[in-house]
Each structure stands twice: as C-alpha cells, then as structure tokens.
C-alpha cells in the first residue's frame, strides 16, 4: 500500500515538474499574420515594404479611395450633384447639418495621421537603407505623402488660406516625430496655424522634388511633387509660383494628354497621369459601403447610385463635348434608382485606378496663372488644348475670361475632389437654385459649416485641441 502511494506521489511530482520546465515555451506563441514592430523596419527590403504600405494607406476609403474625392464634391453639391444615398454622414454634409461627431471627419483625420506616422517611421528608418538611390527615393516619397496629407487636412479642417494675410487661423496639428512607443503616442498636440501647415507642406515638397527620381513607375516622381506643389501654390493664390511649377511639369515630365479623357479613367497609369492610386479586383477601396464606383456608379446591380449628376451641371458641356456624352456622363441603369438619371463615367469599376494628379490640371493651372498675369494668348492655347482633346468647341479669345477658365476647371475636373477647394480659393459662394416655393440663394463660401469639425472623439481625448467655430 505504502509503495503504491509513494510511487504515485513520485509520478505526480515528476509530471508536475515536467510540466513546469516546459511551461515557458508553451506560452511563447507568435502571431502568424504580423511581425514585431521593433524589428519591422530593420532592413532595406522592409523599409521598401513600408513605403508601399504608405501608398496603400493613401488608397484607403477614408482617404483617396473615397472621401478625399467624394467629400469636397458633396460639401458643395448644390446645382451640381444630388446625393441620393442613405448614409447619414454624407447626407449631413450635403445638407450642411454636419456636427462634431460626424464619422467622416473622424475617419479621414484618423487615417491621414496614421499614414503620416508611417511616413515619419520610414524617414526614421532610412539609416538602414544602404542603396543611396533608394534611400533618397524613399525619403522623397515619405515627404511627398506627408505633404499631400497635410495639404488635404489643412484644406478640410481649417479656413481657407488668405493670400497676403497672416493666416493665423487654426490649421491642423503637425507631427513629424516617428511614434513607436506608448510614451510618444500620448504626447499632447496642438493645432498649428494654417500658415505653419502650408510652410510645412511646401518644405516637404521642396525636399521631395530634390530627392525623388524622374522615373518611379506608378509612384511619385520629382514631377509628381512639382505638380502637387503647383496645386498648393494655386490654393494660396500664389499664381506665379504655381505657373512656374506647372510649366516645368508640362515641359519636362514627358507626360502627354491621353487621346480621350475617359481612357484616363478606364486605363491604368496612362501617359497623362502623374500619380494614381493603384487598385485591382483584389485590393480596392470597397465594393459595397466604400469606394468611388460604389457611390458614383449605377449599372444594373453594381453601385449604390448615390451621386446623381444634375442636369443643370450636365448642360454646361457643349454639344460636341465628349465629357458630356455617354462615355463620361451616362444614364444610370441601377435597379434601385429611377431611370434616366445621369451618373459620371469617371468612377465605374471597383478595381479601377484612381488618378490623383493629371496633366490636364497643369494646363489649367498654367492657363489661369497666365490669364491672371495678362498673358491671354498662352492661356487660350492651354484651355483649348484641354477642350479640343474632348472634342469641345475651342473658345475664342473674346470668350476667354477668368469665369470661363474656372468653369473649364469644373468641367474637366468634375467629380475628382476639386469643387469645394476651387470655390474656396476663388471666394465663390455656393449657388442654391430655387426649389418649390423656396427662392434661389447663396451660401457664403466662408461659412463655418464648410470646414469639417475637429473630430469630437479627438477632443474628448485631448481637450486642449480647439474646435472649429460653429461646432
């Protein structure tokens, strides 16, 4: 009896001690779909992957995948497009009843700063990149992405830049520190002024122009950075600088207008574009609740058909203008929408690329700058270059005015996320046509409601952040 007992005790003890010694291994389980952050950017190849990841972040639905393009259109929808969808955050933008807890303001802000942090981490990790050309390219790409996002943020969350003014109105917080630890992630932040944000954007783009290569397939080149800087200067009404850069891109980038505008959107990385978000059927911004084709298209069962192009806008295209014909403005066939309503042909496939900067914009920038500088013939040539590509009747010199140039921008760049920003920089109020018994009226382009709120969630976390007026 006693032996049985002592043996079993011994066995049990042995079992327990075996168990004990191997325990720590048993608790050592690593994730299968992720890698540890401390070593993630430890070599050149991984930094390269993070640069790709940065572009992918840009293509997310809250950034260029949808919102950075859709939202500036919706916020100035009157007399242009009608939002027929059910998403309350978009309806509130159209109706100008947005409040501080709108999800759009929150998710765009969040994802922009996440991508900015990736850019900061890439810059921080550059010492491990041993190939000099790649090192400079990666830095240029990171600075370019950072600049692009700060530019979008300051336009959406701050009041318009006033040329010649102090621009002390609040912009967005600027963070250039690569955040890796909890300590860094809890540093409080304050909003910089609009002037400071523009200075940061211009600094980064200037560096990027120097760092980026002339060739970088499907990614940012030195000309992409110049083109974006032209857009930035235009937003500041710094027409002279904008012209220099646009002119440089037109002359030296090797880019050329595509034979048709629709081919820019149906093709991939055409000769016209300086930067596109790359998408395909596997990887895209979304097919049911996100994505440009989701909201804009209405083709049988495809697309929500939420954005209808109003006849008032469609009628601005002249008779021969390809931009007003079925390839670019088609009658939707979606089952949940009335027949015969117009939809844009720019966003018709879930997996299509999203052109962000294209050469036509550079012509339009140069035309506007030239016109403002009094160089009418040159402006006329540029405008007509854009028009004739789409078989629109060329304008005559007497027809050329600032208004027609700005209208040409609207016609050419419609549904690409320019509308609100152009109205703001040209101080053009939003025209709301008469409807029913309500007379026509104008909405002041400087209204508080045309600036997105700082996300309420962000202010809850950091009460020191100052909310925009009106929220």
């Amino acid at each position: 009896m006693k032996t049985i007992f002592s043996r079993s005790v011994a066995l049990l003890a042995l079992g327990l001690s075996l168990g004990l010694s191997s325990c720590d291994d048993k608790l050592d389980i690593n994730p299968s779909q992720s890698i540890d952050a401390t070593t993630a950017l430890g070599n050149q190849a991984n930094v390269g992957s993070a640069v790709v990841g940065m572009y992918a972040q840009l293509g997310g639905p809250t950034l260029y995948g949808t919102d950075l393009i859709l939202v500036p259109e919706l916020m100035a929808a009157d007399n242009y497009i009608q939002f027929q969808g059910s998403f309350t955050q978009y309806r509130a933008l159209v109706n100008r009843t947005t409040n501080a807890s709108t999800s759009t303001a929150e998710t765009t802000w969040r994802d922009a700063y996440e991508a900015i942090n990736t850019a900061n981490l890439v810059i921080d990790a550059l010492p491990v990149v041993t190939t000099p050309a790649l090192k400079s390219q990666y830095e240029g790409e990171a600075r370019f992405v950072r600049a692009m996002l700060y530019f979008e943020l300051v336009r959406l969350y701050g009041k318009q830049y006033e040329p010649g003014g102090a621009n002390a109105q609040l912009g967005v917080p600027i963070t250039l520190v690569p955040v890796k630890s909890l300590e860094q992630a809890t540093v409080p932040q304050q909003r910089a002024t609009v002037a400071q944000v523009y200075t940061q954007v211009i600094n980064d783009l200037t560096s990027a122009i120097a760092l980026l290569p002339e060739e970088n397939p499907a990614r940012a080149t030195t000309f992409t950075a110049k083109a974006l800087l032209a857009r930035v200067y235009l937003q500041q009404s710094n027409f002279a600088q904008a012209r220099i850069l646009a002119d440089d891109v037109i002359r030296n980038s090797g880019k050329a207008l595509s034979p048709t505008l629709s081919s820019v959107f149906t093709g991939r990385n055409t000769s016209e574009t300086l930067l596109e978000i790359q998408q395909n059927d596997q990887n895209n911004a979304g097919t049911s609740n996100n994505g440009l084709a989701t909201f804009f298209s209405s083709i049988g069962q495809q697309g929500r058909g939420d954005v209808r192009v109003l006849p008032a806008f469609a009628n601005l295209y002249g008779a021969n203008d390809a931009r007003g014909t079925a390839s670019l403005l088609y009658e939707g066939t979606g089952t949940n929408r009335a027949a015969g309503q117009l939809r844009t042909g720019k966003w018709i496939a879930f997996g299509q690329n999203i052109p962000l900067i294209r050469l036509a914009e550079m012509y339009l920038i140069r035309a506007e700058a030239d016109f403002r500088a009094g160089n009418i013939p040159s402006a006329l040539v540029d405008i007509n270059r854009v028009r004739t590509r789409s078989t629109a009747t060329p304008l005559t010199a007497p027809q050329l005015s600032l208004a027609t140039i700005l209208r040409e921008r609207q016609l050419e760049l419609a549904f690409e996320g320019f509308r609100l920003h152009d109205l703001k920089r040209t101080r053009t109020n939003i025209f709301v046509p008469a409807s029913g018994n309500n007379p026509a009226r104008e909405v002041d382009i400087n209204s508080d409601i045309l600036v997105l709120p700082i996300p309420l969630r962000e202010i809850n976390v950091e009460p020191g952040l100052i909310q925009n007026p009106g929220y």
Partner: protein
Amino acid sequence: MKQKFLLSLVWCLLLVTTAWAQTRTVTGRVTDADGSGLPGVTVLERGTTNGVSTSADGAFSLTVQPNATLVISSIGYNTQTIPVGDQSVINARLGTNETVLNEAVVVGYGSQAKSEVTGSVTQLSSKDVENVPVVSFEQAIQGRTPGVTINQTSGKLGAGVQIRVRGASSVTASNQPLYVIDGIPVTSQDVGTDVEPLNPLADLNPNDIESITILKDAASAAIYGSRASNGVVLVTTKSGRQGQTKVNVGYYVGTSETTRRQKFLNAAQYNELFRESAANAGITDPDEVDALFLDFGIDLNSGVDQNWSEEAFRTGKVSQYDANVSGGDAKTRFYLSTTYNDQTGIIIGNRFRRGSARINLDHSITEKVKVGLNLSLTRSVNDRIPNDNAFTNPVQLNALPPLQPKIDPETGELNQLTLYTNNLVDIERVTNRAGTYRSFSNAYLSFNPIKNLTIRTEAGADFLNLNEDIYAPAGTSSGGNTGEGFSNQTQVMNYTTNNTANYLLTLNEANTIEALAGFSFQRSDLKQTSAEGRGFPNAEFTRIASAAIKTGGSSSSRDEFSFVSFFGRVNYAYQGKYLLSGSVRRDGSSRFGANNKYGTFGAGSVGWVISEEGFLQDNSIVNFLKLRASYGLTGNAEIGNFLSRGLFTALPYADQAGIRPSTVVGNPDLSWESTAQTDIGLEFGFLDNRISGEIDVYQKNTDDLLLGRQLLYVNGYNTVTENVGKLENRGLEISLNTRNFDKDFKWSTNFNISFNRNEITELTSPIQSGQLASVREGQPIGVFWGRKYAGVDPANGNALYYAEDGSTTDEITDSPLQVVGNPNPDYTGGITNTFSYKGFDLSVLGQFVYGNDIYNSAGVYQAVNGDFFDNQTIEQLDRWQKPGDRTNVPRAELFSGNGAQASSRWVTKGSFLRVKNVTFGYTLPASVAKLGFLQTARLYVQAQNLATITNYDGYDPEVNTAAFGQGNYVLGVDFYTPPLAKTFLVGINLGF
C-alpha cells in the same frame, strides 16, 4: 503452455479475490415516503465516483470500500447519508424535497453537497433544458438563473446570446462567462467571418445535458483563475448508471410566429404624410411633387398598397427527434444518444438543423482504476440571413414605400425597381449557409491508490470545423452583375489536459478535510482559409472555382493562445457545521505582455450551518440555515491574442505587398483584469423545506480594466490596450422556493429576482459608439449619451432639444450631450409555478426585465416624420401639422432634418414581462404504460415566449443588434433586428 496460462489465470483470480476481500457488496432498495420503489436514484460511495443508480423498482447493488458511507440522492428528494458499517443490506426511504437544497453540486474539478458549498452557485438540471424549442441551452434557462442575465439579442436562429454573470465586469474584454463542458474549457466565442456572431454553443445538444452549474462568486470560480471574472458555466453531460438498461425516445413538433410586429404606413397614409412633407419643403405644385418622388422611383399615384414590413416574416416550424439508451453494470456504464433538430425560422430564409450523437462511457478496470470516454459529434447547418445593417436583411423591407409593388406587374417577377433593394430577390436566390462539425470529447483515467485519494488525469479536445458558404448569383443585390461567391473554412482545435489529485481526510468524526491539487494546460489553434470570387458564367456555377476574378476576401490566417495553470483547493468541515474553504490558481498565458506572463488568483470562504447548532437542531420551523461569506480574486484574460505587442501588418497595394504599423501601440506591461469579489449569502429552509431559498449580496470590484484606451489619432495610433480603469458591480439576488401544496395535488413556486448596479469608477477618457452607447466614469456601462429630445415646438413644429440651462432650443448643436438612457435593467428575474396532479403536470415560467432603456438606432430612418423616403412607423402620423398642435412628432418636411439627428427621441423604456414557457404534460400511469411495454410515457404541449407585455414600440424588447461589430458595451440597441419566436409544440417521450 496451457498450464502456464491456467496458472496465471488462477493467480489473477486470486489477486482479484484478495482485492474483493477488502471490499463489500451492499444491496438494498430505495423507496419514497409511500414505500414504492424509486428508480434512477443515485447511490454514491462518499468521496469517490463509485456509484450506481437504482433500477425500476428501486433496487441497487454496489461494491464499496470498508467503512464507506453511502450518499443516496435524487433530484427532488432529500439526500440521505448512511454509513455502511457492517451492513450488507441498506434500505432507504427518501422524503421529498423540491427545494434542491441538498443535491450534489458540480464545482470546479469536483462535486460537493449543496449544503457544504461555501460559494455562490446556481445549478440547473436536465429538466430545465430538455425539449425546449431553442437552438442552444442558454436560451432555455432564461428566467431561472438568479444573478445571471441572458439576452438572446435577436430572433435569428443560432445568433449570439449575451450572458452576464453578476453584471458586466469588463468594458472591452469579453463579458461572457467561461464555458466548461465535462471539465474541458470549450470554444464559446464566435469564430465565423460574418460581423454577426454565431453561437458555438449551439453545437451542444441540450438534451444531453445532465446539469448546468453557474459559478458566480470568487470562492466558487477562483479555481479557474484568470478566466473566472465573468463567472464560469460548468456543463455536465449525462452518464449511464448501473442497472436496467433504459431506452428513451422523444419527438416534438410545432410552429412558431414572431413575438411582436411593428406597424408601418399603408399607401394612403404614406401619400398623406409625404405630400405634406413635400409641401412643407416648399414643393406644392402636384406635378413637381410627382416628379420629385419619381426621381427616387416612387410613383405617388401607383395605386399599389404593398405591406412590405410583413414580407420579412412567416410561420416557422420546429421539430426534434431524439433517442437515448443508458445503463450498465458494475464494471461498465454507458449513455448513448442521438438527436435531430430542425427549426425553420420566423424570418424568411432562416433555418437551423442539428444532428448529433454522443457516447459517454465509464469502465472500472479494477476497483482502483477507472477509465472513461465522452465522445460527441454534431453537425449543424444554419441557413443564415444577412446582418441587420445589410440592405438584404429582410427586416429592412419595412423601409420600402408601400406604393412600390412587390411583384412587377409587367413581368410577374419580383420588382427590383424599389427605393432600396427588394431583398426578396436575394432571399430567394442567394444561399448563405454556415455548416459546423463539432466534437466535444474527453477521456480520463482515475486511480485510487489508497483510500480517499483519487488521482485523475484527463485530456479533452474541442474540435470545431465551420464552413461558411455564400453564393449570390448575378442579378441579385449581393451578387452584382456577375455573381459573387465566398467560402470560408475555419478550424479550431482546442485541447486541454487536467491532472488532479484529490484527497479526503477524515481526522475523526468531527473534522474532515478535502484537498485538491492540479495542473492544467490548454492550447487553442484557429486556422482560417477563405476564398472569394466574382464573375460566374451563370447561376448554375456556384463554386469559386468557376469565378473569373478572385477578390479581396481570399485569405488564410492562424491564431493561437495557450494557458498553463497550477491550482489547489482545501475544504475543511468541522462537525458539518463550520465550513472553511480556500483555493488558489497560478495562470500563465501567451496573451499577456512580456513583463506579466503569470498571475496568481485565489479565494477563501467560510460557512456556518446554523441549523446544526444545538439551539436550532430540533427547531420545528427552521430546518436549515446557513450563512456563508467569501472573498477572492479572479481574472479576465479574454482580449485578443497579441494585444501586448506592437505589430506591423501586411497591407497590399494593388499587386504589391506593403506593410504598415498596426493601429494599436504595443504595451509589454499588459496583464489580465483582476476582480475582487465579496459575497455574503444566507441559505434557509423552513417548515421541512416547504419554504427555502437563498439570499446573496455581493460587491465585485474590477481593477486594471483591459481597456483600449483611446489615443490621440494625431500621434498615429487609435488605441493602446492597458490595465487602466476600474468598475464595480454591486448586487442582491434572492431566490425563494415554496411548496404550496404537497399532497396529491402539488404546487410549487420558484421565484428569483436579481438587482445589479454597475458603475464605471475610473476611466481615462470616455468611449462613445455611433449608437449613443457610451462608457463614462460615474455611469453604468453602456449608458446612452446624446442630446436630449424635448418634443415639438407647438408654434412651428420644430423638434426641440434641451439646452444647457434646461430651456429648449431647436438648434440641436446648442443642446449639450448628456446621459439620456441606461440599457442596464434595475432588476431581472423569473417565476416558475409547477403544478401536478396524478399524471398531469403544468409549469409556467415567467421572465421579467425592468428599468432598462432601448435605443432604436433605425429611428433616424423609420421614425423621422417623413424626412427621407423610407416608409415610416405608424406613430409618425401624429406629426405636428398646424400651430398649436401638441405632439412628440415634429413637422414633416422633406430633407429638412427636422428632428432627424440621433437623440433621445428614439430612446424608450425596454421593460418587459414575458410568459416564457408554459408546458402541460400528462404521464400515463405506470400500469397503463406497462401494457404497451413501456416504462414511462408522457405527452405534452408547450408554448415558448407565449406572451410579451411591454411598452416598447419596436419589435421585441429583448434586443441588441450585433450588426456593427461593436464593443460589448453596446447594449440595448435595436437596428432592424428581428423579434424572437413564439413557439407552440406538442411532444411525446417514451421510456422502454
């Protein structure tokens, strides 16, 4: 050779006889108070697992150790404890006891007599969960569990069930209890890919359950250490008993309906409201009005009156066949069962089927060595419907204007030109099926090397294989223009080994000590492989192999965790009067940060059986009185598996592979949540247990909340998971059981009521969800935080909100955000009345929930005075129309957003009283049954969710949508969520 064999056989026999010489065989008969034999009574040798159950006439025979004590127990009767001494025949007469005070209670790694338990536990028996038309057993015990609230959340079959044991003890980590089936922790959290969870416990056949024990306080649960804070649910499956073989077959069949429906506008009402709405928006010219509506595909003059909201529902069906055989002899006991359950849901397109088989086997190799095996295999198939937030959710049909027809008059087909998708097309043509293979299995070996010492080793595996298949052909809303398919295979292997030694030491008559020590290891490995494709040649091709384009849902992944644990427990009893118990567990887990791999948890408890004291011993009124108190520390480890790490994840960019930092910043200090719980309980029995019950008060303080603390987005991350924050739950539970009549006519009542008050006592920053639900310091979890609706300005029909100073304003932004509702009930409970007379039995279970609020998140679309074209609830007809009108529904004005923003306008009281279950049965007298060669025969009719009394104006007040994949602090939110089913059935059980 032959001789050698014979010789060894003789030796063996000799050995066996020597072994037999140390034991003795006891026979006897167990009868009830009237002297008739009681079948199925458990006769157990105390302190061991050696036992039998009595045969049809109450006889038993059991071989026991010398000086053994027999514990003779049966549910519904007083347990008797009889020392064997020199007797070889023991007859026992059991008095009835419907108070279940003295039954054996399953506890962690063992069992205990209820009277000796010093923790707070609730035990339910097979009869509470058998033959109830539900998918999983938790749904059957609603209303019967003091301190445990169970919310079915939705009428979808197999949907997740929310269970809170003594309130929510976490904000971001799971609040669901740990489920342990036959000693093995099982996968109880959803492993599917849909945003709405599937309940993995639906794979357990409720008819196989012998008992369910819910461990509520620290004393009972701390033996499960870092996973015990949310309570532990121990499920024990049936096992065979020595005696005559019993065969039981059962069948039920029935129909089901919705518990409640909601009313929407008909065509005339829609026309009236929306023409007014257009007029108020300045559009009065009839042509212009028609044109405006036609823009959205609505023909105001169509003459159609389609009742869309009713299209989502139908009469469901339920049926179940089941059979089991159990029995055994002194060496081998077995239980075999098989069942087939088929439920056709009340929501179109929804159906659940489950077939299962089980074998539970125990075998005594020798007197000292026993082995056993429990093996089950379940196949369940769930035809699912889309999540609440999908346009294809049938309940969303109620948003379609009644002016649009269901059938296109020209084609005779389903009309697809509707405001939102006519999802009847999808319901008809899309398949969405989740099929599961599940096996809960375990094997054990137990060894009694010496008297009173049991060494037991067991290994268990919970294998789950889930296959989700969705195919939407071209032309459906989900299938787009070319068809879409998705197929996902999830496999979870979750295995555990428990090794325990249990020693019962009786020092003398007065002092008994029972000690347990053990070691346990668990590892779970989840693998997922999915494929998604678009572009099918035609609807006859339904597999991804035929898809032209493989899309973004194609993936494979893996997720693992492990636990290593050591534990021990000591119970000490002095004269059965003073009870003392202590337990400790040390847990290590792969989930925790590098700096905190191991944690130690423990609890202590004391009990005083006052009725054993001299001054109460022969009291004619008080026959049982026990005071107990416990205090202990438990943990909650249910967070994601790798939250302590800072990680980079892959992010594809078209056809290139990129990486990015995860949105959660790493925290190497991450550790479990700790809950310190104090419990004081009183158990009583008066007048020979005619009145008995339990009262418990508790205080649960949870520290180190695993909280996804929100970080400033500006710094690049969303959250960090930290041990910050505190919350507490305080509560009172009362259960009271009475035997009102106890003669031929029997009537007993079981009543329970539970009060729980939850408060977040420390939080770094508030958490806010899109559905008003919020977590705030000083408030209970999940309070609705938003703007307070103040009704309608009688002068102009504008929606009003309360301003800071208490006045009203029609500028919603001038109204401060504040607490506008609380989804946590003030109290919950249930009452069961059971009657029996001769062969008739009737039981009525009522369930109540009082004082909670519900936020109808769909209100912004469906109850918003005709702001957009969605059909509106009937109440919207009460809109303001002219100055002086006093109403709560603002002026209808198309697109104006008048009263259309999220606010307390859609927060309403969610209290309800439900007649949960009524069962009326008739058992044939044994003499009659025998004529048909039957032991027993019972016929019954049953109604589940028979009546629901509530002021809630939505579908069903027992609701919480899971459509937004939100945190578990989102409670009481309705969003096109279907109601529960009301089921009527008839059934029969035959015993051979």
